[in-house]
């Protein structure tokens, strides 16, 4: 009978333990989430910078990212480009660009224009001399319209053919950001 007593004590004590834990859970601090990517294109000859921005404030939530292009690009112009990646679920927003820079070996931006509206060249490298893409130049040609897709890939195979010149085909890895901007060159 002792065992029964012991069992009932165990059971009752577990019920007591249960009734104590009624606190509300804490919201998760999502440090890693990327909500926003901006590409700022400044004409080398001077002028107003053009901003390509994608913003998805609910992360994996149902709302699609809001994609904006501040203006059209000018023909036959060289732009200096800078990428910025933010986590705006935090306040103030966390600059993920710093993390990408710190882990440059494991990251690479890819820029894929269509319709031959522009060409892109990397102007920065990681510690092994492979491109990173936080800094780049974008050169427009003749008038036209098309898209530029900008992707951030985590753990790409930077030594695979074409990858270091910006071709994403063999890059593999995982896509952290993938955004397509409609561009008019005039």
């Amino acid at each position, binding site marked *: 009978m002792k065992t029964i007593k012991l069992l009932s004590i165990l059971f009752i004590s577990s*019920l007591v333990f*249960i009734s104590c834990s009624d606190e509300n859970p804490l919201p998760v601090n999502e440090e*890693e989430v*990327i909500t926003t990517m901006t590409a700022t294109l400044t004409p080398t000859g001077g002028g107003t910078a053009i901003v390509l921005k994608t913003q998805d*404030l*609910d992360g994996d939530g149902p709302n*699609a990212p809001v994609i904006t292009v501040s203006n059209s690009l000018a023909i036959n112009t060289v732009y200096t480009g800078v990428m910025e990646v933010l986590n705006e679920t935090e306040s103030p927003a966390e600059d993920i660009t710093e993390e990408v820079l710190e*882990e440059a070996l494991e990251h690479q931006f890819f820029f894929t224009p269509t319709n031959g509206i522009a060409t892109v060249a990397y102007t920065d490298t990681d510690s092994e001399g492979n491109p990173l893409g936080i800094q780049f130049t974008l050169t427009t040609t003749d008038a036209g319209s098309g898209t530029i897709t900008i992707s951030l890939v985590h753990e790409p195979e930077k030594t695979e053919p074409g990858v270091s010149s910006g071709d994403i085909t063999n890059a593999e890895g995982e896509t952290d950001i*993938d*955004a397509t901007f409609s561009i008019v060159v005039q």
Partner: protein
Amino acid sequence: MSVKYYLTCLFLCFINVTISQNCNLKFQGIVKDFHDGTPIEGAYIKMEGSNLYAISDERGNFVFNNICTVNFKVSVSHVSCDSKTVTINLNKKSFIEIRLEHHIEELIEVNVTSKVNKKSKTAQETVIKSDVLERYSSLSLGDAIKEIPGISSINTGNSIVKPVINGLHSSRILIMTNNVRLQDQEWGIEHAPNIDINSAESISLIKGANALEFGGDALGGVIIVNPSRTFNKDSIFGKTMLNGHSNGKGYGFNTTLTKTFSKGFYINGQVSHKQTGDYKTPDYLLTNTGSKKTGFSAFTGLKKLEYGFEVYYSYLKNKIAILRSSHIGNVEDLVNAINSDEPTIINDFSYDINAPKQEVIHQIFKANYYLRFKNFGKLDVQYDYQNNHRFEFDIRRGDDRDNAAIDLELQSHTFKSTLKLDSNSDNIYKIGLLAGYQDNYANPGTGVRRLIPDYQKFDFGIFSIGNFKPSEKLAIDIGVRYDFNRINAKKFYQTSRWIERGYNDDFSDIIIEDFGTQLLVKPSFDFHSVSVSTGLSYDLGKNRSVLFNYGLSNRAPNASELFSDGLHHSAARIELGDLRILKETSNRISGTYNYDSEKATITVEGFFNHIHNFIYLEPTGVETTIRGSFPVWEYKQVNAILFGADLNMRYEINRKFMVQNKSSFMKGEDVSSNRDLIDIPSLKTTNLVRFTNKKWSNFSAEIQSELVFRQRNFPNNNFEAYIPRTDSFILVDISSPPPAYHLLNVRSDFDLKISKKENVRVAFSINNLLNTSYRENLNRLRYFADEIGRNFSIQLIYNY
């Protein structure tokens, strides 16, 4: 009848007898069954310290004449009973009633050559015994039970193996280990049961919900894992197994040691450890597929006829690496993976377990106590506590690199009690009740939104089962069970998701806090379920019998089906639960024909299962995020039917050669929309030829052919994905099953004599002998890589 049988039965003690000069005393008595009081004929009653003995007649009566002493002891034994010693004082009593325990259940467990050891006489039940389980020592529970036709598995790679019974898996299967219902977050397909197969002595598998004693929600079936049995004699015995296999360069060991005492005390300890590195397909290494599993368990207790108790503890830690290439970013990555013949990442062999990986620690504590009452029955009370702590690690960036993405701790307390009324062995009744409490804690420190929220769950169940034997040939089982489940959760929803789900209209009253972009809500659900089970077995004579079963079972939705809300990296999909999901109801009928003789066995099992409100995941659309686009899979409810047949045939051509065929076929349909169900096992047939020669050191050799057909009935869930880079849509083929495959496996074993009395069993096997490249439809990583290639294994088993 084996020697062990007699040893257990005829265990006699010797004591001193005081001598008296008066030799005309008379002593008589009656021997009866402990449970129902029926007289026992042929019991052997021996007066200790003398050569006097008597044997009970058909009425159980016995008599001793011309006894010289007043105080003495008699030992009473019978072939199918536990023996018993009784002290007699003739001055007080010259007639005695002796109750013997008809120990059939326990004895059969001891007798390894016996065929039956079943939990039920009428259910579709199969038992896997230790000699077969030993073969799977380096694998898992899910691999071992595939020995049974109709059982398959749904895998994530090679190490995460979930059992599938007649097409149903996860929460629809109930796993009992040492009479404890395993509570280990079984809802996820990538969550394998936390059972150390090396701690099992035998496994019983019951198809369908015909084991109401354990639960009413096992629509698929029940798996009962039994630890090693003890019996009342002074003994110490153990077993040590060593395993090694070439593919993955794996090794493992397991040791079990049991000490038993004639007074009924026993103590057992078991330790196992196994480790494997990266597996290999015929053509490439599977980078990051190793695993490391460590387990130990111990139990101690007292087993007497009238009362007994047991205390049990087990610890199991599994670390499992998941194929590196299966961790992907978006749909485009998935398309690339499907179109690529080889995984995208192949590195050199390693034992390292890197992200993506799982780490699960499961602990069970159990204590039970029983009391038996004369002419009445047995009362059993049990408390168990389980702690399941699951970590999942993703490929992450920055400071979170080594931080788990999922950190869930599930604690379960269960109290249960059963009363078995077996005074009349033709009409046995069992009634029982269960009360359970569960607490799930999702650690917010992961920095990733909780996939499963914090919740508390309360369970209450009550059942009654009757086993009737109206005639020698007929056995009938009837059971009824009622279950109540309450789940109280606290969950954060993204405000955007809350609105998209339409919860604003139906559930606005459960919001407890508004964080702007997030809402904290408090869903609470109650479920009431009634389950019924009936079974009938009829002996047709000449080794033939038939079984019929009907089962009504209900399952309340699990936490995943209600609350899932997030991105699954290995599937590149967003999975969404639904707060509106109701319980599902299954009506299953089945029939079995069985022929079982020394020379041949034929078992044909058929089933038809109609499930109302069957809960399953189905793709419903595409959502775009900053990462790119993802298909959305939502939990839905449909009406489904599953039906099929399983066949097992064995024939002994002569004393040396045996052939066997096991086949299973089934179909699953969503009758609401006339589609095939997803994840239904395809037609499979295995053939085996075994040669045995006991004279050659118990030698046996076998070759097995395993043929798995392509699944032709599958739902088309393919979808078009927009690829921005090329400004085009491409078809993502996630549905087409891989082609049929055929595997050959060989195995041989024999006894190696190491001393006069001791043997070591040596087994050698080669799986996938022809090094065939193949992919299995029910492996979630089939988009990324082939199954493993040829594997040489060696195993040493030492019983002592």
